[in-house]
């Protein structure tokens, strides 16, 4: 849409350099550096209230930017309004889901659909459950179905960088399994970059390529997800939960 056909391949999906941001004058993030490559899944973990959600909201353009650069496929976006960042390929599935309750599942998916690989048909293939409920209203869905719909709606805008904020929070184990399957299927597409913020670090680490751990608004650890998952000692020190 914005003529980034070739540049998408040449640049990282997301590059963040020396980013400081927060809400108004209050600074939550301090000098964040990170890179997410095309087709890669990065998980952001950390204790409650350390700035994980602030980080994704800053990428989307919902916080006050203080310093540093946010580069999406080679384009600096930190000064762009939220809707333009979305059009450059940044999709965001918020923790609160916020599906349109007065619209049907189908309408939710089509509302701002943009041309691309993720057609409604392909999205329904990924979420058979939504296909069954496509004529139901947003208000008639369970929490898990709403989560699926929020992801589906974001996919319909054909993002190249998808930010998922605690997608499995508060959901039943079966639904969690279903969402993990969806996440892995999106990963297998190969072109979509995923950033996953998650409290349930075991699930997150087991289904991602790399991880960063945030504490007090700074990145305190970065490694392959596999390595951190295997290193119970470091994990315990960073996240502070009994294994």
């Amino acid at each position, binding site marked *: 849409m914005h003529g980034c056909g070739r540049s998408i391949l040449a640049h990282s999906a997301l590059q963040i350099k020396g980013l400081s941001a927060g809400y108004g004058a209050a600074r939550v993030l301090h000098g964040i550096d990170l890179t997410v490559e095309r087709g890669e899944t990065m998980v952001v973990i950390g204790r409650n209230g350390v700035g994980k959600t602030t980080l994704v909201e800053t990428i*989307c353009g*919902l916080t006050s930017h203080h310093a540093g650069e946010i580069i999406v496929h080679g384009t600096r976006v930190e000064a762009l*309004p*939220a*809707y*333009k960042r*979305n*059009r450059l390929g940044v999709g*965001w599935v*918020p923790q609160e889901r*916020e599906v*349109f*309750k*007065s*619209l*049907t599942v*189908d*309408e939710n998916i*089509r*509302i*701002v*659909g*943009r041309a691309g690989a993720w057609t*409604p*048909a392909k999205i*329904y293939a990924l979420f058979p459950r939504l*296909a069954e409920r496509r*004529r*139901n*209203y947003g208000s008639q869905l369970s929490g898990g179905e709403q989560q699926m719909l929020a992801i589906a*709606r*974001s996919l319909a*805008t054909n993002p190249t960088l998808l930010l998922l904020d605690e997608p499995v929070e508060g959901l039943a184990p079966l639904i969690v399994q279903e969402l993990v399957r969806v996440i892995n299927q999106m990963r297998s597409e190969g072109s979509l970059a995923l950033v996953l913020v998650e409290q349930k670090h075991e699930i997150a680490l087991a289904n991602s390529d790399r991880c960063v751990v945030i504490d007090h608004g700074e990145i305190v650890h970065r490694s392959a997800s596999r390595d951190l998952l295997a290193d119970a000692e470091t994990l315990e020190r960073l996240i502070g939960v009994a294994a």
Partner: protein
Amino acid sequence: MNTPTAYFEGLARWKPLEIVFWLVLVGLFFVPGVNLPLLSQIIIWGLFAMSLDLLLGYRGILTMGHAAFFGIGAYTAGYLGKFGWTEPISALFLAAAIAAAVGLLAGRLVRSLGGIALLMVTLGLNLILYDFVLRSTELTGGDDGLQGVVIGQVLGMFKFDLYGKTAYLYSLAVAFLMFLIARALVKSSFGLALLGARENIPRMIMLGAPVGKDVSAAFAIAAAMAGVAGALLTQTIQSVSPDALSFQRSADVLVILILGGTARLYGGFVGAFVFLFLRDWLAQLNPVYWYFWIGLLLVVVVAFFRKGIVPSLGVLFTRMQKKRGTDERTPNRAAL
């Protein structure tokens, strides 16, 4: 698993009840002794309320100044007729264009507002215009309105007659065309985006849809249709007075739409039918206190059929269908 076009085509399919609705309106023309001037008024009010529905029902914009656009259309048609442009259909186009231009400006002015602020600003704009028309006696004829408005024959063939036959068929045809346009709009992706913004503006922005522009566009379209309704009124009664853009009219059209039900398009027409028939009947019983009964009706309808007449009937209809075992599970918004 249909394509986007197939989806919107599916939405656009006519329901039997819709066809019946318009056939009844045509059929009323042939009923002996029917009050055609009143029916013309109903059609015009219905069109006016439908234009408000685009803003209130589909986008959630609560405006108290919609009569301003109606008045602009009415006065445009009035001036044209007064100064020799008597051809009615081209006058409708001009009325629509001028009202749309003002609507676009008004939309730009209010698009970042919401809630009470929006209500106050639209009300304010309406009052300013009303006061201007009332005071500029040399320009507008003030309280007396425009004198000497001449309207030619429709298509050069049909003269506006004393019984209101031409007026009724002409109003009905124009209203139906406007309805077709509105219907196509709300069943398109534009209409879907309006509904999304009605519910959750920040979310629409995060999905890459800037919502300011659609407010201006919705205002322009709604204003154009309100302007057409106003022009129709001028043409069918061959005069225009400041009543056309009074605050009372803005309030009445809101009452009509809420009575009939929002976000249905038909709500405005049904509301106008109930409102004007009752007003006519009550005014005959007691010419002074009829607003008491209108007020009571409004309280009763809103208290017991919270969403208005058409949506309540829609729910009833779906329930009856379910009882009969034909559970189609179609969204009832599309039912009528």
